[in-house]
């Protein structure tokens, strides 16, 4: 339903000036029954007999303003009168709802009011204001309305700029009005068959552009035009763009959802382009940022954003901006970098339909394979390294990875992450109970993580991944370790007497202090009674990772933030399993894109 309401019903250009309010162009222009009516009405013959009946008929129709998806019962004059607003309304959002129809526009004064500049070509009829209006169904959601207003504003700014540069809009308006007059002058028989707007399409470039805008908005929500071959105006309606290109008709992704996803973007995420990089580069407009091309050239689904930044020679912040941009424009999606320990499962929204376009596209890409067979494989959570035959030839393995990438691009798979909860006693854990102040790492903002990241990059820039893990105990990382490194010497001092204490069953108070303060003493003792807690190394590590065991951080995030190796982490979790509960579900980014 939402998908339908995001398409425009019509696009209308009106102007107001010395010749009164004029409708310059509308598309689509043939409302089936009103076509004749429209043409007749556009003739302003002062001697014509005004038929009172005509209006009576319209007045009595209480229902819809739409008929077969087109505007109904709106003559050109009426549209001009209501959409060419008073000049007081210029420069702000214009919204008008009539029954089940909603007009959205951004009326714009032709000349900047304050400068008081007079039109350079003051001879001839002058235009005071114009308005590009989108007619939508009234049920359109607020975010759709916001997007259309934004687009109308952008078009208006471009048109006004071109008007100031070379009188583009005045010229186009003259052509359009000329066509109307021309058609009006035609003999009766001809002008019934001809709409002035179809002639305009031949003569006016702006008319063609507006038609193009309308058609692209209806098809995939992605518009790019060059106003007067000069100013580029581009626009993306995320509600459509994300679904159409991926053959996901049933899903609507709203800009708010995308923003939510971008809020949880982390340096360890990766960007997955939804199309071939070369194809995307070819589509780019000439004046885009060169950084974007660099990103396109070096990005792979295996590379985290941090590495992407390093390879493309960009700061993390810049990479985040570019990636956010690409995600909004439905050119990319966010994943966790592909690696063999990733666990994937079939998305609940995956379409299983046989003989669908999706299945045949899959066969085009991977001849001899069946999409459904692969989907069957992913019905159970599957680690990338378990999928397929481990003895297979290298090219088979490559193909397996490619199928996974393809399925991720089409949102058929979701990645499952493991989350850890600390529940030491039989009651609910006090570490987990929500209280804002304790959320130290709970919702670490992007900045914090980026900061931690930049520290790491500076500290460990010349280590490869394995080196850095090896040095993990020594390497100070951010505030956490800094506080612990002080404790390290204490620990060493304690070690000697420690074993005696434990044997006697008395708990060393110093050790307890390492655990988060939110835990009750009962819970702390439960943790200390775990056999593995006797090893100071393990215990120290556990205490350090404790804040992550609130179910908000998956293993990969803990590995990233604390620079721990997966095997170390898994061993630790296993040793302390009696006080921990683990579960697997998708992460927050995935939740957004799969509407879970």
């Amino acid at each position, binding site marked *: 339903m939402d998908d339908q309401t995001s398409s425009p019903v019509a696009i209308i250009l009106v102007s107001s000036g010395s010749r009164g309010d004029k409708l310059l162009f509308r598309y689509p222009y043939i409302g089936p029954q009103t076509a004749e009516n429209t043409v007749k009405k556009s003739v302003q013959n002062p001697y014509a007999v005004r038929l009172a009946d005509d209006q009576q008929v319209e007045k009595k129709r209480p229902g819809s303003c739409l008929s077969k998806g087109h505007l109904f019962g709106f003559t050109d004059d*009426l549209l001009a009168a209501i959409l060419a607003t*008073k000049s007081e309304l210029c420069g702000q959002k214009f919204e008008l709802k009539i029954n089940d129809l909603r007009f959205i526009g951004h009326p714009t004064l032709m000349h900047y009011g304050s400068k008081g500049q007079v039109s350079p070509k003051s001879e001839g009829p002058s235009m005071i204001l114009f308005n590009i209006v989108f007619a939508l169904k009234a049920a359109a959601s607020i975010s759709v309305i916001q997007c259309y207003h934004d687009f109308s504003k952008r078009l208006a700014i471009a048109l006004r700029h071109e008007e100031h540069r070379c009188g583009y809009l005045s010229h186009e308006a003259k052509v359009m009005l000329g066509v109307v007059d021309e058609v009006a002058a035609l003999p009766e028989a001809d002008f019934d068959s001809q709409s002035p707007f179809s002639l305009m399409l031949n003569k006016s470039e702006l008319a063609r552009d507006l038609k193009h805008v309308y058609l692209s908005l209806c098809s995939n929500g992605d518009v790019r035009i060059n106003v007067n071959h000069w100013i580029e105006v581009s626009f993306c309606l995320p509600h459509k763009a994300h679904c159409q290109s991926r053959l996901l008709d049933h899903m609507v992704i709203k800009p708010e959802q995308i923003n939510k996803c971008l809020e949880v973007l982390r340096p360890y995420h990766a960007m997955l382009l939804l199309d071939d990089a070369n194809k995307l580069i070819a589509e780019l407009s000439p004046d885009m940022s060169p950084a974007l091309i660099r990103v396109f050239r070096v990005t792979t689904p295996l590379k985290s954003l941090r590495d992407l930044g390093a390879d493309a020679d960009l700061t993390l912040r810049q990479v985040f901006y570019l990636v956010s941009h690409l995600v909004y424009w439905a050119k990319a999606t966010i994943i966790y970098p592909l690696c063999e320990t990733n666990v994937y499962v079939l998305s*609940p929204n995956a379409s*299983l339909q046989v003989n669908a376009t999706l299945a045949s596209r899959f066969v085009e890409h991977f001849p001899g394979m069946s999409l459904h067979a692969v989907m069957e494989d992913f019905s159970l959570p599957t680690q990338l390294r378990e999928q397929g035959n481990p003895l297979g030839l290298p090219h088979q393995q490559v193909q397996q990875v490619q199928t996974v990438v393809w399925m991720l691009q089409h949102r058929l798979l979701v990645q499952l992450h493991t989350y850890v909860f600390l*529940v030491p006693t039989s*009651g609910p854990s006090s570490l987990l109970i929500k209280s804002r102040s304790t959320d130290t790492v709970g919702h670490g903002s992007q900045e914090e993580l980026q900061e931690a990241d930049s520290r790491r990059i500076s500290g460990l820039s010349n280590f490869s991944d394995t080196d850095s893990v090896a040095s993990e105990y020594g390497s100070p990382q951010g505030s956490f370790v800094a506080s612990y490194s002080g404790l390290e010497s204490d620990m060493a001092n304690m070690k000697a007497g420690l074993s005696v204490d434990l044997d006697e069953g008395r708990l060393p108070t110093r050790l307890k202090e390492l655990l988060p303060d939110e835990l009750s003493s009962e819970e702390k003792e439960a943790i200390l009674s775990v056999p593995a807690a006797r090893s100071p190394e393990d215990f120290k590590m556990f205490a350090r990772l404790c804040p992550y065991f609130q179910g908000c951080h998956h293993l990969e995030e803990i590995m990233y933030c604390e620079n721990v190796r997966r095997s170390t982490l898994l061993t630790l979790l296993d040793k302390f399993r009696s006080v921990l*509960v683990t*579960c697997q*579900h998708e992460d927050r980014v995935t939740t957004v894109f799969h509407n879970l």
Partner: protein
Amino acid sequence: MAAPKESKIECLLFSEFHPTAGPKIMYQACLYAYVRYVLDFPENYIDKELFDAIHIYIITKPQLQGRLIMSNAFGKKIMGCPVCIDHPKYARNALIFNLCFVFDGLANSRPYEKPVRKLSRYLVSLERESGFLSNEESKQTLPRIMAQILTDLNEQGSCAVEVNQVTTIYLKTLLVINNPGEVHMYDVPIFTVQCDSFHSHQWDLTTQQILPYIDGMRHVARISVESDVAISLVKSCLQNMLYYGIIKLLPIFQYSNVYTVTSKINRLAQDRDLQNECNKYVAKPGQLGFPCFRDIFMLFCSLGPGTPVKDWCARHNPQQLKVDERRLIQFGVLHGLLRRIHKYPVLLTNEPGSQNLRLLSRWLNGQHHYDEICCRTGLSYSVLDEMIEDDPTIVVCWK
């Protein structure tokens, strides 16, 4: 059902087409219940400047009369239904007026669409029957009426204003609720409120007939058979109750079902109220004491793809942990902590091998899951499963 707080009416605005002065504001009733008789435009809610800019959407062209028009400008939403009464007795042969509701520019005005239309019809009939608006004396009462409508609608969500001996204006704001999803024959309805907290005798007869069968166990098809009500009627009754949020729908409980935990499980870990509620809900009846939180949480977390409920029961033995597995899963699904994973058989070739499956083939296109196929064909899960397992041309996907 009162309207949400943020969408209060800020002002009621009555404007008229004055025979000599043109479009004009006659009265305004503002939020703070004081009424001003507007002659020389003192500082008012809608000032003359604003009105001049937008009056074409209030006193409109004849083509737009009788339509519900909402304009949004200068941070104000103005919604009205312009009216024109043609009669030779009026100056200019017509009386044109509009009583608008004014809201904040960001308010949700949808609940007021119906009242605005209804109010304009009231005024038309009042004028036609007794000349209410053309008679200066009765017109003087309009500001009082407007003020009362404003306060009552804002405070109670409905109003009944007496205009004269024969007419009372009844208005009510309507919350627009999204349409509930479709009810399928394999869904299981369950009450979300205490069954006795609503008056069952106020429901229609068919609903009353099926009410006793809604117990969180029986599915729609079974309710239809047992209550002797046609399945389409059962579905529409349930849809109605779904709309009012009295019931929710669950999948049929079977030990072959597979559930998975969702990211909302964090709520259970963090929310003490939910924990207490859960504790009471999942406790096995007839047992002393409640199950402990750690066990419950562990039971939730150990559900996942590839673990049917029967395997999960065998592994963790919830009964011994004082947990009723059925209620645990019910609680999880109701609160979105768990999600059902359905099993979809997909036939890849056009001719299935066995005779039996030929009859089933229309259900094997990947759009129907086991629950639905079982319900529609009357096969049991195990029989269907056997038939499908035997056929190599069928793939089975879980999602």
